[in-house]
């Protein structure tokens, strides 16, 4: 659900460090559900930009007015809620960032929310699923492709 609206269209930007070096890119996303969830359930993203995949180890997530956190840290936010109304910012580490112009982003979110107990529960405690396999994305089953213009 909300397939075409999960990434805000005008949100793709390069990110600079304190010294002005471009260290990656960011964009804004919403939860692909009709409700919010405890933040700990948020398991990362399948992100491919112009054919290059950026895995969880280069992703951090900024929400609730806090600094961007890795998904290992997010996992421990067991009493913090990601409210339905709120947009989060995904930060992807990539030296030099993205080139100016249009980019093709393939995108799928993984949030381990479900309707009660599932046969996969124990397995996902031991080994959380890889985002992009469809696990944790039951309301947007397919990888969605966005064409986004890099903003200044």
């Amino acid at each position, binding site marked *: 659900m909300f397939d075409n609206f999960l990434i805000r269209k005008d949100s793709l930007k390069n990110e600079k460090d304190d010294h002005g070096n471009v260290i990656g890119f960011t964009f804004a996303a919403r939860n692909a559900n009709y409700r919010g969830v*405890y933040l700990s359930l948020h398991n990362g993203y399948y992100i491919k930009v112009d054919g290059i995949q950026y895995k969880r180890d280069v992703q951090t997530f900024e929400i609730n007015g806090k600094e961007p956190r890795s998904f290992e840290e997010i996992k421990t936010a067991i009493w913090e809620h990601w409210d339905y109304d709120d947009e989060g910012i995904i930060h992807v580490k990539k030296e030099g960032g993205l080139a100016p112009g249009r980019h093709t982003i393939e995108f799928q979110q993984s949030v381990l929310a479900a309707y*009660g107990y599932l046969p996969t529960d124990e397995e996902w*405690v031991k080994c959380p699923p890889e985002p992009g396999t469809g696990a944790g994305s039951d309301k947007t089953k397919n990888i969605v492709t966005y064409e986004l213009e890099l903003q200044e």
Partner: protein
Amino acid sequence: MGKIKRGVSLYSYQQAQFFKELDLEGQIREVGENLYGADGIEMLDEMSLRNYPNPPEEFFDQWFSWMEKYGTTPVTMDVFCDVLQFRDHVMSISECADRLKSDIRLAKKMGFKNVRTLATTPVEVMIEALPVAEECDIRMGKEIHAPIPLNGQYVNEIVDYCQKTGTKHLGIVPDWGIFAYRPSEVTLDWYVRQGAKRESCDLVTEICMDNYLGKSDELNKIDLSLYSAGNVESMFHRYLKFGDAPKDLIPAFNKMQGMIRSNVSGYTDIDFEVMGQALLLSRTKAEDLKELMPYIVGIHGKFYNMSEIPEKPGTYQDISMDYEGPIGFLKEQGYEGYINSEYEGQRRFQDRDEAHLISEVDQVRRHQEMLKRLIGE
């Protein structure tokens, strides 16, 4: 004799909230002012509340002032339970019950009369939370959602417990989707836009209608009575992609694939998923409600698409489910509780651009026209 009461689950306005067209007050105003006398509010805690599970104290005053201003009343709060919240272990029954108890107290504080739990909530969780429900005088209802039937284990275990103990605080919340007899036209159109063949849509509709009209019993042998629709859909998708699924589901999945293989040429995986829509039907009849009347906490008026009845301008129907039969039956039985509109068709338009999204406000108004007419107000 009293009358069936009308309300709305704010679930219906999920898209308007997503796009910030209607905030919580705007949704309550719409129910109070534009729905021909409807007054019931049903709300999902994790959708409508900011800072769940601890909204600031000022919020509660504001909430009651809205109820007064718009002439509405809190009826049911719908709650959730994601069992992987702690991530280092799967939540135990007691941990789920703790969360439910905390949600019951929150519902009480907001003036709700009922709390709806998910269809898949183990009855043990509800029983462990029951003393808190009794203390707060909140009725807990387990949602009975397609493909779960009214005459299966999930309902029986609730009824048995109520009969054994005499508790008045446990029951069921039937979802109108159990009276659906075919996939909605908006669901099928969505699948066609995703690449499914129109022949597959016609095939699934034909098989469902033959089953409904008693011309075939092809679907009756399939038992998915312990699964929620959302889980069946995502498990079928995973099965098609990776070949793994719970063992008891595999025969039903294979059967759906077989029907496409033998009837539709040039099919792809998505055609199997179209056929899988037939697995989401409960095949429930209105009379199945008879023995369950004392345990009905509230009813979800689920619908997928309200279209104008041919040659009857200004009147509406959902062509995928029976409303007339069950409402007639509920009236006959003297049901005095709420039917709360629960619109679920919006996601079937969200693959398109913003200009082609559907108006939830308009769909709910149409649904309330139908309810009012069938109830006979």
